[in-house]
């Protein structure tokens, strides 16, 4: 996943995926609708990016119900947290001009 030169994670090379991770690392659990509202994206767009984050093992999906309506929530995995913090370190190094 990592670019060997910069250390940046390619999975996070997208505004929405990075946004999802930023929100999930500070919130225990968050619903699809709350993510959508916070990131101002369409259903389909958000769903695609969530699937790719899940496939990489960075987030966990919990399917639940409120009454009869489905309520899907997301949380970050330990792997995801690690990948995200590595990505930020890489960004910081980039800003400082360290290689």
């Amino acid at each position: 996943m990592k670019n060997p030169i910069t250390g940046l994670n390619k999975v996070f090379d997208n505004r929405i995926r990075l946004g999802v991770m930023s929100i999930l690392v500070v919130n225990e659990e968050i619903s699809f609708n709350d993510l959508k509202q916070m990131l101002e994206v369409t259903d389909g767009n958000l769903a695609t990016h969530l699937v790719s984050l899940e496939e990489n093992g960075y987030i966990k999906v919990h399917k639940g119900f409120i009454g009869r309506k489905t309520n899907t929530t997301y949380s970050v995995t330990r792997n995801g947290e690690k990948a995200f913090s590595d990505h930020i370190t890489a960004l910081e190094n980039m800003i400082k001009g360290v290689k």
Partner: protein
Amino acid sequence: MAEQNQQQDSLREVTDIRRLMERSSRFISLSGLSGVAAGIFALVGAAVARYVVFDKYYDEYDQRHHFDNSDFARLKMQLLGLAAVVFAAAFLSAFYFTWRKSRKEGRPLWDFTSRKLFWNMMIPLVAGGLFILGMLQYDDWRFVAPACLIFYGLALVNASKYTLTDIRYLGYFEIVLGLLNMQWIGYGLYFWALGFGVLHILYGVVMWWKYERVSK
């Protein structure tokens, strides 16, 4: 050149991350003017309560030299009604200024950050409210003002995890004021006016000065 671009990109990315982390964990549209408005209503309420209790109730007592239970029951109902009106007015005005601020910033007023803030504030507040009603049920009026201040202070300290952290200091002050009030039981109304009136206005002005003045 390419390196500089990448540096710019990284900087923008970090700013984005920071903004989202902050925005998704705290409700930051709380307006200082909300505090000022709530404080003004509290002071007006306290002044009316003082008039009802001291000028009317005690005056009547001085004239007639005796009171029965129905007079006291009437006073209780008047004070409870007044408390409800003050609470509603303070709450609505506080709500209005925060609504106005969130609209100006183009943020939703009712998203999961304000929801979290609301629930975490409500837990100590509702517990305190029921506790105070319970005391009134046993005709104990002495600890109403201290209990109001202490439970409200605890609610603010709890809420500070979900909004501007400055509100925590307002919470500390309310708790200290409530505990001090325990040593001067007869002066509940003054402590109450200080905590809910003066402190709210001071806090609101400081918050407005710190966060909202610049954006004008």
